[in-house]
């Protein structure tokens, strides 16, 4: 197995994976464990990793599965069960106008707070798309979802985020 090759390919993802792990776990120590576990597992599985496929998506997927199996991740699993893709548009009540959204976006803190409070399935998909700039196809690989579901879950997640920002704006 080519450790040198693996090191060359995987270490540039280190900062990104760590940042993502922190956002998922909300705890630096947990994130450190998670990143170490991810690299250990990826190294072990690197032999079966097909060259030409997307290493970043593959490693994010390992990280995510490790997270779901971790102590902090197990708590989140129920959220996945409740995440009904065909759910109603429950956030309509908190509809936020583009103008209000524009204002809310001014505050870094408000956005980070809202993001932190989102349920994991919504938080992670927004991070993968807007922060890690993955394509829908990559996201589908990471989350093990059909490509069509990515778009609908992303829509729900963003609606949720906007509702949180809108609620905050309304309180001001």
């Amino acid at each position, binding site marked *: 197995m080519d*450790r*040198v090759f*693996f*090191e060359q390919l*995987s*270490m540039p993802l*280190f*900062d*990104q994976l*760590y*940042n993502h792990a*922190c*956002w998922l776990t909300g705890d*630096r120590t947990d*994130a*450190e464990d998670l*990143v*170490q576990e991810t*690299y*250990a597992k990826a*190294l072990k599985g690197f032999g079966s990793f097909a060259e030409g496929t997307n290493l970043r998506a593959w490693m994010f997927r390992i990280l995510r599965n490790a997270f779901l199996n971790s102590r902090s991740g197990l708590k989140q699993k129920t959220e996945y069960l409740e995440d009904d893709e065909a759910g109603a548009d429950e956030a309509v009540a908190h*509809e936020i*106008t*583009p*103008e209000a*959204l*524009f204002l*809310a*976006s*001014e*505050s*870094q803190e408000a*956005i*980070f707070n809202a*993001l932190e409070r989102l349920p994991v399935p919504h938080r992670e998909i*927004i*991070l993968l*798309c*807007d*922060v*890690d700039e993955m*394509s*829908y196809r990559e996201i589908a690989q990471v989350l093990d979802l059909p490509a069509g579901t990515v*778009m609908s879950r*992303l*829509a729900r997640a*963003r609606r949720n985020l906007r509702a949180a920002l809108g609620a905050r704006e309304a309180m001001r």
Partner: protein
Amino acid sequence: MTACSQDRNVLAAYLDGELTADQERSLQEHMRGCPECAAEVAAQVRLRRSMKRAATRFTPSAALRLKVQGQIAPKRSAGFRWLWPASVALAVMLLAVIWARQSTAKNEAFREVADLHVSDMASANPFDVVSSDRHTVKPWFQGKIPFAFNLPEFAGSEFTLLGGRLVYLHQQAAAQLVVGAGKHRISVMVVQESAGFGMGMPFAGGVSVRDSFNVETWEKNGLRFYVIGDAEQGAIHRLALALQNVNG
């Protein structure tokens, strides 16, 4: 917000770059005449720009990077690669010995290391933690020393990890590891580098002979390493290389 029936998610997909060229063109055309959609897109763009900063909100420590790198670092084959550095080391050693004689202060720094090694060899209880498993020995030091270091995988190498203990070197808490090489025992000492004593060390690099001990020392990322023992110089150097490989 009701005048335009345009789906907001299509606008999002547009910003995500996920629309086909045709869809993109017709949407752009629509937006030119629709202030609502234009405002919506502007707000989404702004939100994304603020969100981007989430990418660098958490940055990993250098220690974690080193740890992970050590975890996945390629294991060097134990071929004859060491011969070349060893011969260079020998030359450096000769120079170092000549140079070192000029300074008794430097000898003091070495003596401390040698004394620790000798006293450990002579001790009836040479280890605080007895294990050949680096995953046992390394965590044992946690909280006992104010720094962290990595240990190479000894399984399958010519070395065996015998154990470790907490020692004081240069008035600081230091980690001492005892590694077996055949019938010889080698001590590895790790201590935080502080201004002063590192410069006083007589050995710039490679293996030196001191009081019939072979010793190698180096500084990396604020830590000073010593490898000392009566094993042959090549073995000392190979152990030093293995340690250097996992400590960035």
